């Protein structure tokens, strides 16, 4: 086993996270966005950019300003200050070009009951210059058998999949999906996640608005955490989660007894506890390497090493002071 020298938390994390600048032109660029409704500031100085091919999550409690941010980004709402570019296009002045390359699935947006799935898809398909192949899209989304069915008869999951199909039917370069799995059962939700991954694998940049922590953790390369209109964090889900308790947790079984001070003296380690034959170490940075190297140099081996990852929900609560399903001030 090659033992790498201890590295700082930052550089270690950079290796695993999404490269911050893949191409010269980001798929989405938002800088200093500000949107007010009367006295209420819905979005306050939000900036982030999304690289091409990334799955980017916009996360936050209900009413945090996620949807407003997205609606501004796709040209559905004018905003008070800031700059937005989608593949270099201005959503306010180049709306038509933007809508040609950006597929959108809105949180609200039902369709007429008495239209059949195939009629809806065929109509939306005709709106685009280079639409996607309908057979393939419906197959991937599991809608082929529902093509002849009325919208009214579709289940919640099927409607959601149709909605995603409409977002993708124009062969977009960017897909913006707002709460796409809300109302889906767990299986349908997991199927949708797989679908989104396959969409990204085809080179589509995905911007995902969600308040499901698990969804963000499983799917997103990076997430922007928005609370009360402000961007409170922007990082990979793993790093955000790590920040939650300022770090990580390692569990292992030592080959021999040792003095706890051996570990507590390390800068990476904050707390050492014993749990039966296990030792539990809380800390930050490259905790695993630091602990194992130090023990090894003292002639002690660590068995059954387990890195407990703190989840994004922990980060969420820490950063916003609320749980992700708590209602915000504005909906």
């Amino acid at each position, binding site marked *: 086993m090659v033992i790498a020298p201890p590295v700082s938390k930052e550089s270690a994390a950079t290796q695993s996270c999404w490269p911050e600048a893949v191409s010269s032109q980001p798929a989405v660029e938002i800088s200093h966005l500000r949107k007010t409704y009367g006295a209420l500031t819905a979005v306050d100085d939000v900036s982030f950019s999304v690289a091409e091919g990334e799955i980017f999550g916009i996360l936050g409690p209900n009413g945090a300003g996620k949807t407003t941010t997205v609606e501004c980004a796709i040209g559905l709402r004018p905003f008070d200050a800031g700059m937005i570019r989608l593949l270099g296009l201005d959503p306010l002045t180049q709306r038509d070009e933007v809508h040609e390359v950006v597929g959108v699935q809105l949180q609200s947006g039902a369709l007429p009951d008495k239209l059949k799935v195939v009629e809806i898809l*065929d109509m939306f398909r005709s709106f685009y210059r280079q639409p996607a192949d309908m057979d393939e899209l419906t197959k991937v989304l599991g809608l082929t058998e529902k093509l002849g069915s009325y919208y009214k008869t579709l289940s919640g999951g099927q409607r959601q999949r149709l909605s995603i199909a409409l977002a993708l039917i124009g062969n977009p370069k960017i897909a913006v999906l707002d709460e796409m799995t809300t109302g889906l059962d767990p299986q349908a939700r997991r199927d949708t996640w797989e679908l989104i991954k396959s969409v990204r694998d085809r080179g589509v940049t995905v911007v995902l608005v969600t308040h499901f922590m698990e969804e963000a953790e499983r799917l997103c390369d990076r997430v922007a955490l928005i609370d009360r209109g402000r961007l409170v964090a922007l990082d990979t889900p793993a790093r955000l989660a790590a920040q939650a308790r300022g770090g990580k947790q390692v569990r292992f079984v030592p080959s021999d007894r040792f003095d706890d001070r051996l570990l507590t003296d390390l800068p990476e380690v904050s707390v050492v506890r014993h749990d039966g034959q296990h030792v539990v170490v809380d800390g930050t940075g490259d905790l695993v390497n630091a602990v194992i190297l130090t023990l090894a140099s003292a002639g002690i081996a660590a068995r059954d090493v387990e890195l407990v990852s703190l989840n994004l929900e922990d980060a969420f609560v820490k950063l916003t002071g609320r749980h992700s399903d708590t209602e915000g001030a504005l909906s």
Partner: protein
Amino acid sequence: MSALSLSLPTASRRTAFGKIVRNEARLAWRRPVGLVAGVGIPVLLMIIFGNIAAFKQPSALVGGFTLFDVYVPILAVFAMAMIALLGLPVPLASYRELGFLRRLSTTPVPRSWLLAAQGVLQLGVALITLAVIFGVSIEGFGAHAPVSSGGLVLSIALSVAGLFPIGLMVAAAARSASAASIIGRLAFFPLMFFAGLWLPQDLMPTLLRDISNYTPLGAAVQAMQSSMLTGFPPVAPLLVLAGYAVMFGFLARRFFRWE
């Protein structure tokens, strides 16, 4: 809308608009309340009136014409009013309620196309219904043929121009499809009264008749009746219809909400 030329070539734009109209037609056909009210009822009334012997007797009360002659334009206006006040606004209000208009605004196609498509569809329905009412009443039941065909065409055109924007205003004012349906019906009955559905204008007291002449449906009946029975319609009802077209066109444009 002008920027759209950048997105879709003309032929594709026509295809896209055609697909919207076709889906609108499917929806109208699959939920035929609007068609029954706007087409079925007036055509049925025309057939019933055409079979009542007393309606076919010339009467001095209505200038020596038959009551049936007088009622044909009233039924034509009945159909147009149903189509304009219910057929047009109810689907539009429901699309806003559903968020369909909003969804459309995320595509390269302007959401105003949905309004235009609904307008084209309802215009088609109205013209077919009028053709049936005038054609069958004249050919099948011996109603008076139009004295001024040009006047009739102009009257119909101005009636469409005057009534459809009122329907758009109903769609603008209503928060939901059911509200649009209620507002449309509430507007329909008094307006239809002034159009002479229950009491033809010739039989109305002077005051009612004067009021009637300034209502949209009253003016439409007046213009069509003149074209059918006496000759080119007087300027007054035509101007009234044009006035409604301008006023409600402006109001609907000003107040229509997309979300």
